[in-house]
């Protein structure tokens, strides 16, 4: 690692508040979104979707639609052979998992409202839509099972042929794993001499609601089939097409052009993508499908939807002795690409920042006649964090101490890092004391507690509550070996390439495909810093399998900590390759070369060459050392040894109007430890956006089905997304415990805010009204729910 060792100083790119270079085009929309793509002779698709959650298809009459103006063809499942492909579940969580086959088009039975039953191809999107209205489908309704509570009873079956709704039971037991004691014993002994807290929390179903609806274009003309998709995962998608349609991977090019958000919602191999691919091949023409907002809310995968039965045992003074989790997770009608794995990710996070002597996690995944669920910002970790952070507040209330004190009593002390948890993960670095101290100070904790006491004493109609969340999470997905041990069907490395142009500009190619995060800016900063080139001279290319041939894409807060590390290694290889060439051109010994100020220089002289100059010299190749190739380009693949563990202390003050139940945020402060920061402005953006998304789960968002399986909150009139008008100005800061598992010392920040904020908000709401005898409000904490809790507490009193 001579090149790394030879790097004595950095330019000032790392840690710099660079404005994002991609923003001008993204914010003005002057860029290529998938739906902007129009190709000669292109046809447009419209989907005919089932209005029923569960029904037998008894007939499909396409004749009127076929006669409609501009229509080319109308097809149903029977018109396709196996080259249509299937939607795959890449993570069967147990060997005996029940996984219903998922054809992109329903064959003889629909299993959720929104499932595709027929497809119209027409010369315009409007003509396709008009004709779709004319397709007549006869359904014979079947009983539908919608809620988790009903589904686990197995009385009504989502897929009668499977004989059960229960897909898989995944268990972790610390006694069996050898990481800790027996949880049932811990609970039994706390029952006789200690504290046992039993709670059931509901993680309501959420809709990712990305800004750009999903869109797919496929051009089958030419040697390669080219697919553009508004996806997070062009590489995985290419693999999925090849694996399920029989078309060789070498014949498929997948491009994710600029993509308008995903939040996990575009981490999917969708029926729509498979259909567009098949239709383009069948018709021999370019084909486009762009979903409507209604279709997006209805059929793009949803997130969360769990019921968590929790039992926490502790000593009388609040030392936790055990945690037992019994979790039911609603998969929806099919097991999505990592649908079953999402709750399993949570298994490693229920113990959070704490030292638990005994732990058991039981996860039952359950099929229902609803839209499938899968990753949504945080994926499994927000649910786990919510549960444990709520429970820590409940424990504090039971013991009668400040909730910060109960946390400190149980958390991993700074000097104990690296620390191997009861769930088997090794946290490399962290400092909960420092983050908490800083957050407390920023918050004005003592003053707000004093105000709370005063309002309680005065019986103020507006009560004040303080909520705490000392979260951690595992991100930087993922060590491939760990994924293998969990039966995940792929790896978790990332790939990067650094290319130099003759004029000394740098092209960076990353397999982490951005969809709004700011990779182009942050990655440019890293390379500019590493190679000593101007920020403006670095171009980041991504999202096209022909350019970035290898990669595992963007999710799980992985791009910087995995992809960025691959990039650092590739850049360092460039320096290594350049060193002997510089020595040769400067007529010096390789041993006398050092890399300073962005140049290879001869030690003790002012002679040197920049990477740009070297690149030009290599391009000409007139004077290279013998046996050295005329190329500075380098690539690297990085597979992390471990996950990455950001943490932080979040403090939230909520006002609760006891007359109406309305809750209002008064103050939100967080101190996150995400290791070293490349670009504080991008980090602030991720934190702010993440916080709002987590707060929205606590207060507003809820995907509601009626008993028949109709999505009631199917538009933004009823699915309440917050806007800037609904939030306050957050105060954010950082402590820095660099990660030890990557060169840059960075930790993931993409999901941190979302994971942390939900329990902070609900804890604050509950804290405000706890003196009334209330110890829970179900999410979202609607005014009606809060008012009913207060009203019945007052009646009971």
């Amino acid at each position, binding site marked *: 690692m001579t090149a790394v060792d030879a790097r004595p100083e950095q330019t000032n790119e790392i840690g710099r508040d660079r404005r994002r270079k991609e923003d001008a085009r993204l914010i003005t929309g002057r860029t290529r979104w998938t739906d902007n793509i129009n190709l000669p002779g292109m046809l447009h698709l419209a989907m005919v979707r089932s209005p029923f959650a569960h029904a037998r298809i008894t007939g499909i009459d396409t004749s009127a639609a076929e006669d409609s103006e501009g229509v080319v063809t109308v097809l149903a499942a029977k018109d396709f052979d196996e080259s249509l492909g299937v939607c795959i579940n890449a993570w069967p969580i147990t060997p005996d998992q029940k996984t219903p086959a998922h054809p992109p088009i329903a064959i003889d039975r629909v299993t959720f409202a929104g499932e595709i039953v027929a497809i119209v191809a027409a010369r315009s*999107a*409007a003509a396709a*839509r*008009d004709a779709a*209205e004319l397709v007549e489908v006869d359904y014979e309704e079947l009983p539908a099972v919608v809620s988790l509570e009903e589904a686990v009873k197995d009385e009504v079956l989502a897929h009668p042929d499977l004989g059960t709704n229960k897909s898989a039971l995944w268990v972790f037991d610390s006694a069996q794993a050898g990481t800790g004691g027996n949880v049932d014993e811990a609970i039994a002994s706390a029952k006789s001499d200690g504290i046992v807290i039993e709670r059931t929390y509901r993680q309501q179903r959420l809709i990712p609601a990305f800004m750009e609806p999903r869109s797919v274009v496929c051009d089958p003309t030419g040697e390669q089939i080219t697919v553009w998709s508004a996806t997070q995962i062009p590489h995985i998608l290419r693999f999925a097409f090849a694996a399920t349609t029989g078309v060789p991977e070498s014949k498929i090019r997948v491009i994710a052009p600029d993509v308008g958000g995903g939040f996990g919602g575009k981490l999917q191999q969708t029926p729509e993508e498979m259909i567009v691919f098949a239709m383009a091949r069948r018709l021999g023409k370019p084909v486009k499908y762009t979903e*409507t*907002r*209604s279709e997006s809310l209805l059929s793009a995968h949803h997130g969360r939807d769990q019921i968590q039965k929790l039992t926490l045992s502790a000593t009388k003074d609040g030392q936790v002795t055990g945690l037992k989790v019994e979790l039911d997770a609603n998969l929806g009608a099919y097991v999505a690409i990592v649908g079953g794995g999402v709750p399993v990710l949570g298994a490693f996070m229920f113990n959070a920042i704490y030292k638990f002597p005994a732990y058991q996690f039981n996860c039952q995944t359950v099929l229902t006649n609803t839209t499938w669920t899968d990753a949504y910002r945080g994926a499994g970790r927000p649910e786990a964090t919510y549960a444990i952070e709520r429970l820590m507040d409940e424990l504090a209330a039971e013991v009668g101490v400040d909730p910060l004190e109960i946390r400190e009593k149980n958390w991993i002390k700074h000097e104990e890092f690296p620390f191997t948890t009861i769930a088997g993960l090794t946290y490399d670095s962290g400092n909960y004391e420092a983050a908490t101290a800083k957050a407390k100070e920023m918050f004005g904790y003592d003053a707000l507690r004093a105000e709370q006491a005063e309002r309680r004493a005065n019986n103020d109609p507006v009560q004040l509550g303080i909520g705490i969340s000392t979260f951690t999470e595992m991100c930087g997905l993922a060590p491939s070996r760990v994924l293998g041990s969990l039966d995940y069907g792929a790896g978790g490395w990332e790939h990067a390439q650094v290319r130099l142009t003759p004029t000394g500009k740098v092209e960076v190619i990353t397999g982490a495909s951005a969809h709004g995060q700011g990779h182009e800016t942050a990655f440019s900063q890293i390379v500019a810093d590493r190679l000593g080139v101007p920020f403006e001279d670095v171009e980041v290319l991504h999202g096209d399998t022909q350019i970035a041939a290898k990669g595992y894409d963007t999710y799980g807060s992985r791009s910087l900590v995995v992809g960025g590390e691959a990039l650092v290694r590739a850049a360092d290889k460039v320096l290594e390759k350049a060193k002997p060439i510089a020595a040769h051109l400067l007529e010096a010994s390789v041993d006398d070369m050092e890399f300073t100020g962005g140049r290879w220089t001869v030690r003790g002289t002012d002679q040197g060459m920049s990477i740009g100059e070297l690149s030009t010299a290599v391009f000409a190749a007139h004077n290279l050392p013998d046996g050295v190739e005329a190329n500075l380009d380098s690539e690297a693949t990085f597979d992390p040894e471990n996950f990455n563990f950001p943490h932080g202390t979040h403090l939230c003050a909520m006002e609760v109007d006891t*007359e*109406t139940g*309305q809750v209002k945020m008064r103050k939100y402060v967080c101190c996150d430890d995400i290791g070293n920061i490349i670009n504080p402005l991008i980090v602030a953006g991720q934190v702010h956006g993440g916080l709002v998304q987590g707060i929205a789960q606590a*207060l*507003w968002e*809820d995907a*509601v089905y009626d008993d028949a399986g109709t999505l*009631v*909150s199917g*538009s933004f*009139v*009823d699915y*309440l*997304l*917050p*806007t800037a*008008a*609904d939030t306050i100005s957050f105060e954010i800061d950082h402590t820095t415990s660099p990660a030890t598992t990557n060169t840059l010392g960075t930790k993931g920040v993409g999901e941190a805010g979302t994971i942390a904020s939900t329990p902070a908000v609900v804890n604050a709401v509950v804290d405000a009204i706890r003196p009334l005898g209330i110890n829970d409000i179900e999410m979202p904490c*609607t*005014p*009606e729910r809060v*008012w*009913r809790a207060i*009203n019945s507490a007052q009646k009971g009193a």
Partner: protein
Amino acid sequence: MIPASFDYVAPTTVEEALAALAQYGDEAKIIAGGQSLLPVLRMRLNAPEWVIDLGRIDSLKGVRDEGASILIGAMTRHCDVATDPLVAEHATLVARATATVADEQVRHRGTFGGALAHADPAGDLGAPALALDAEFVIAGPAGERVVPGSEFFQGLFETAVSEDELLVGVRIPKHTGWTAHYEKFVRVAHQWPICAVGATLKVSGGVIEGAAIGLTNMGATPLRAAGVEAALVGQQATEEVVRNAAALAADGAEPPSDLNGDADYRRHLVMVLTRRAITKALGG
């Protein structure tokens, strides 16, 4: 979200618009600001063959002083109503309520007449108009007719305007010197009200001389809280009087139950909001 195809006409006078309505009958839909109609068309809940755009009829835009009353043209946009000096002075409650409608974008397209003609029970403008004794000016084949609020609102999305007619304006008797407040209860800022109360009062020497209270989303149509008004008029403007009057707010209301709240919650809410609306209108 592509609407079914339709033909489009944009008349420049009320007469032309009425002629177009007469010609196309129930195959036509009027479009004003489009803020309620376009979602309906895009979701294909309605597929008219003709859309008649009132946007070019200048005579329907703006606010006029008619002496004892003001007339708000049907095509006056929310943003213009909210900032109009005549409305601010003589129909303060309408200005206050209009300023809470949706967001900037919607207020720059949506119209006063369009909102009232749409008659969404959760619309913010019906209750203030009703409370201020507005008269609705309707033009039809036989000329103009004027109906009071109590007749104009007939049910869920239903008004006295028939298929061959147009709402051309709303006449509001001047409530000069009345203070006003519109108390709107929402979960997120851009939401339709779960429940809202408009209160406007005339107080002289500490005595309430006039009170008009309108309720939004407490039934299929906007409601007037007559019991509350009666309990206020002639009384000293004390906290107790206000509290007791507000407790009558839910009398006779038949609020809906939906995702945002069941009827009993709304019945409770309306009392709290009425008290707050009156208190704030009184300057509290």
